[in-house]
């Protein structure tokens, strides 16, 4: 697991006081750019550096149950 993801997982499990955040990031064994992105709380930059998808779609609900309903809307 990447150290950045491990750090985020650890923060997810246990909230960290904001005054200790910068010191915790500084102590991480990660690239300087990743440290900067963590300090800036820059989700987009972190994702780009860690190789995450540039775009996700995740809607798993449709307003209609099936094709018949969909066709009825167009009629």
């Amino acid at each position, binding site marked *: *697991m*990447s150290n950045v*993801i*491990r750090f*985020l*997982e*650890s*923060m*997810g*499990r246990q*909230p*960290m006081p904001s005054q200790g*955040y910068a010191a915790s990031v500084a102590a991480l064994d990660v690239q300087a750019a990743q440290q900067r992105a*963590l300090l800036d*709380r820059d*989700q987009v930059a*972190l*994702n780009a550096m*860690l*190789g*995450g*998808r*540039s775009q*996700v*779609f*995740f*809607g*798993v*609900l*449709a*307003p*209609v149950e*099936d*094709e018949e309903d*969909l066709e009825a*809307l*167009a009629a």
Partner: protein
Amino acid sequence: MIQQQGTLSVVGLGMMLGAHLSPRSRSHIEQADVVFALVSDPLVELWVQDMRPDMRSLQPYYREGKVRLDSYREMVEAMLAEVRAGKRVCGIFYGHPGVFAMVPHKAVAGAKAEGYDAVMEPGISAEDCLYADLGIDPGTYGCAHFEASQFMFYQRRIDPSAYLILWQIGLAGDRSLSRFATGADYRRLLVELLSADYPADHEVIAYEAATLPITEPRLERMPLTSIIDADLRLQTTLVIPPARPMQRNQAMLDRLAEVDHRMQAEAAVAG
């Protein structure tokens, strides 16, 4: 050698990386032979990939221009094919796999219909986070939830003395079910629809749950008409607070009082 009977578990990952995964869901993820995942944040997907490097993302089933019902059917079929092959299959979904989520419900129903064991493990949904982040209790005035397009396609009864919450607002009005976003022209019609019950300047909230423990949820307040040009994405939920006080149902209160009096009279006779 006896072939193992396939099983399906669909589990909720919650909304925030590392924060919401239940022990039972984690156990399903760790013990499954095959793991599929659909999450709402690419960093969360990397986290899942770290837990299960063999994880199969359901992302490739989406394509702009492809009817989502086809994507959903293919996702369900991909999971069920492995169940039929005798595998312990786990489908990981962001939030709660059974809340505003057609695919996990259809997968569980499909597996059960074919005689396989299938379970759904709840997760912390965006709805749960919304109540916490906005300080809303759905029990205070009542709360109605609709998928935004469905709200536009069908005639629904709105109660403006309760909260109204519209999901997938970024896709509002998409009759093709094949777009990744709609825009101002569609939301203008939604505002028109809502204007029958809400004043144009009624304050609404664009809400997005935080997906990382280092980021904040989005709680952006704006007048109703401003949603036309606002930045509303797939993950945005529109929260419309009550616009008027609850109206007493005097006829029902009178009838309840009659019942109370009758019960008291019967108790007095019996006593």
